[in-house]
């Protein structure tokens, strides 16, 4: 390193110290200077004089800055600092050295600007780009180097501000509240951008007038930029500055221009839009209503979907509606849920009759009400001892047992109950179960009801109920046959019947009821084995009309066959045949053959020999035997 006659070590030490100090000082002063410069530029003053850099008064003489405007020349400024005795010109001198390959020596500033104080100007001849310069501030008289700094010229380039800043209106928004402008400028004339010696990028800034904060836009390499979203009726200031691309030093800002667009009052613009909006909404509502009404059905389906009809898997519901019985049977039999075998196993199940339920007249009244006769319908009532279907009973039907009071209330003695008394019917299917059940004290008589079973007449397995025991048992007459086997049978039957009567909880028959109701004395002749009922008892007041009512028709329960009811005690046969059961579940009996009432044998003639069976019951297989 060239020493120029000075002790190198001392100089080196001094230089490093000074360098450190000046480095810090330079940073501080430069930042302050730039700030001051910025403020001054806002007021539109000319740029880059040495006075603009705020010298540090507490320091000694130092450089306040070096700048190049166009990368062809540069200037440096210094300040005397606190050393006021050095302020006269010539006291401090600048020496520079170019650190390139060639060994160069310290040379003095080529041009001390006369017009500006403390400025050293390097013209084109002395400006070497891409060359490191080191400059020193010396007091020659004292031979002291107060300050030194090194740089390369391209790193101190601060371009001049762009010129010719102007703006044009691009558009105004529909509402008239916002507008966009296009700002244009020209590059600084000192910069040689045509050749590309300096490639400049620009930065536009704007703010509302007298606001504190400037809005900065992105760097622009062209010479125009759009500003969007400005408010009308507000005054804006716009300015621009530039720097060399790939370098960091911005030049000063250009002069600010004012942008202002007056707001055009356009009330009529809002009015049509409001009208359009209102009409649009109304039209939409009308359309929606029309749509809903036209598509009502579909919408109903969508919003309130219909409950699906019950569907049996594998069975077409249409077939169920319209199909023939054979088809249905075959179809149903093919289903697993229907087990015909079941029927064969339990024959009684097959004949479960739901006729106890009288749906139109039931009216969801309780069994008690039925028994009490509170229901007013005139049609045939059935003493419905059957409770709800889903009572969880066994497969066989298992009717309830009415209370004796209830049953007693059915008696005509309790005539206050009303006109209608429920009648009793029972089905065969219920019998076996009933037979094994213990019932309460009920006076009942099983009645065998066989729909359309004609020829029973000759059966021998009936017994006449002759009397009721107080305990509720039914005493059967031994029968008129007087034949021992029959008698035995009858006795057996009697016992069975008694048993069954006792055990039959749910049913009572007309006869039973009649027997219960009437104060009829025991039969005129026990050997007759029957009792006759006063016809009055039969009349409609007490009993429901259809059901075995009209004794005039000589419809008499088979147990106690009677003669035509017109005479009070008509000669009646012991047994009669139940012809059929009509629609109202009444037994239609054959008119009794005019046999002498005391002809005990006649029934016997008609009764074929029958196997022993429970009184009053006929099983289907037996039925098969019976039918001719």
């Amino acid at each position, binding site marked *: 390193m060239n020493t120029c006659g000075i002790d190198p070590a001392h100089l080196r030490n001094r230089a490093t110290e000074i360098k450190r100090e000046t480095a810090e000082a330079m940073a501080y002063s430069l930042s302050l200077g730039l700030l001051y410069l910025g403020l001054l530029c806002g007021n539109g003053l000319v740029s880059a004089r040495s006075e603009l850099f705020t010298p540090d008064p507490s320091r000694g003489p130092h450089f306040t800055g070096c700048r190049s405007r166009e990368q*062809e020349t540069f200037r440096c400024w210094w300040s005397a600092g606190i050393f006021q005795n050095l302020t006269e010109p010539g006291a401090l001198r600048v020496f520079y050295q170019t650190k390139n390959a060639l060994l160069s020596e310290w040379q003095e500033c080529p041009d001390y600007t006369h017009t500006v104080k403390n400025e050293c100007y390097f013209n084109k001849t002395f400006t070497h780009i891409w060359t490191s310069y080191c400059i020193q501030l010396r007091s020659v008289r004292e031979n002291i180097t107060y300050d030194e700094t090194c740089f390369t010229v391209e790193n101190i380039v601060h371009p001049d501000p762009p010129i010719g800043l102007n703006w044009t209106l691009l558009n105004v928004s529909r509402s008239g509240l916002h507008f966009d402008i296009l700002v244009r400028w020209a590059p600084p004339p000192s910069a040689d951008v045509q050749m590309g*010696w300096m490639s400049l990028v620009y930065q536009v800034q704007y703010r509302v007038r007298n606001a504190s904060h400037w809005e900065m836009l992105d760097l622009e390499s062209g010479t125009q930029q759009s500003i969007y979203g400005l408010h009308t009726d507000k005054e804006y200031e716009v300015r621009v500055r530039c720097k060399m691309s790939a370098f960091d030093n911005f030049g000063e800002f250009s002069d600010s221009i004012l942008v202002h667009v007056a707001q055009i009052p356009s009330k009529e613009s809002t009015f049509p839009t409001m009208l359009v909006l209102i009409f649009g909404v109304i039209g939409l509502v009308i359309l929606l209503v029309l749509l809903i009404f036209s598509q009502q059905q579909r919408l109903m389906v969508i919003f309130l979907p219909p409950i699906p009809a019950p569907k049996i898997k594998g069975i077409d519901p249409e077939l169920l509606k319209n199909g023939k019985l054979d088809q249905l049977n075959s179809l149903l039999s093919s289903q697993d849920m229907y087990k015909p075998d079941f029927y064969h196993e339990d024959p009684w199940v097959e004949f479960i009759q739901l006729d106890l339920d009288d749906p139109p007249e039931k009216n969801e009244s309780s069994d008690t009400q039925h028994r009490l006769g509170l229901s007013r319908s005139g049609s045939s009532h059935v003493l419905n001892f059957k409770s709800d279907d889903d009572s969880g009973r066994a497969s066989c039907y298992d009717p309830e047992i009415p209370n004796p009071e209830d049953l007693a209330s059915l008696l005509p003695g309790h005539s206050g109950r009303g006109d209608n008394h429920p009648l009793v019917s029972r089905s065969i299917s219920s019998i076996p179960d009933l037979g094994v059940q213990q019932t309460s004290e009920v006076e009942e008589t099983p009645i065998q009801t066989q729909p359309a079973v004609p020829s029973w007449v000759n059966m021998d397995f009936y017994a006449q109920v002759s009397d009721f025991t107080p305990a509720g048992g039914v005493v059967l007459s031994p029968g008129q046959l007087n034949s021992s086997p029959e008698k035995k049978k009858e006795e057996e039957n009697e016992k069975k019947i008694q048993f069954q009567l006792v055990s039959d909880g749910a049913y009572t028959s007309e006869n039973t009821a009649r027997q219960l109701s009437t104060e009829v004395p025991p039969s005129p002749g026990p050997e007759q084995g029957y009792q006759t009922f006063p016809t009055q008892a039969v009349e409609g007041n007490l009993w429901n009309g259809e059901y075995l009512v009209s004794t005039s028709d000589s419809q008499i329960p088979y147990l106690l066959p009677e003669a035509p009811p017109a005479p009070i005690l008509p000669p009646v046969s012991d047994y009669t045949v139940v012809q059929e059961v009509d629609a109202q579940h009444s037994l239609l009996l054959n008119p009794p053959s005019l046999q002498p009432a005391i002809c005990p044998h006649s029934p016997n003639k008609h009764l074929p020999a029958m196997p022993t069976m429970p009184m009053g019951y006929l099983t289907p297989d037996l039925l098969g035997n019976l039918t001719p």
Partner: protein
Amino acid sequence: MGLSVPAVAVLLVALLCLDPHGRVGSAPICAHGPSGCHVPSLADLFDRVIQHSARMHSLSNDLHSEFEQYFLPSKNHIGKIYRKCHTSNILTPNGKENAQKLAREELTEVILKLLMAWRDPLFQLHQSMAHQQDFNSFSSNKALEMGDMAHELRKGVEKVAEKMRVLGMLGNSVTGLSAAEAMLPLSDSGEAMSDYELLYCFRRDSNKVQNYLKILKCRIVPEHDC
């Protein structure tokens, strides 16, 4: 699909070749000479090369600032310690007028010398940056890209020189650079330069190359205000 992929590709290439305005992007593939293809003019070549050099310089500036920011925070931007670069031996014009006064051939040669001189050092720089954990991968990628750019730029400038020679603008004094021209980046004391020094030097040299190319273009291709 009616057309298969190769057919579409051929069609596309044909369109590009036939399109007279197909100057955008890279040069079209012309296997059979200038028939149907548009050869870019010298001005276009210069523009591309200048753009490329600008990008390279920008990259070098970014890397240098990054390095300075993280490793040398105490430096202010005015006081730069002098560093001797390995390319300081190459005589380069130090100003606009000097560069304008220089002959085209010499200017071209200077450019090529500079670019050649940086071939190996840039590779070395990338290697050392990649190995150091102080640099993130982004920086080392930039260094790699910079090296590639320098290489491509050199190739581009050679093509430009070739074109100029063909057009008769250059004399035959421009010689190919021999391997001896490649210099090792050694500092004054003979030690290998540090990464920061390399970055500093390359930033300066890339700026030189960019400006020289601009001056050269202005002299070769006559334009207004040039």
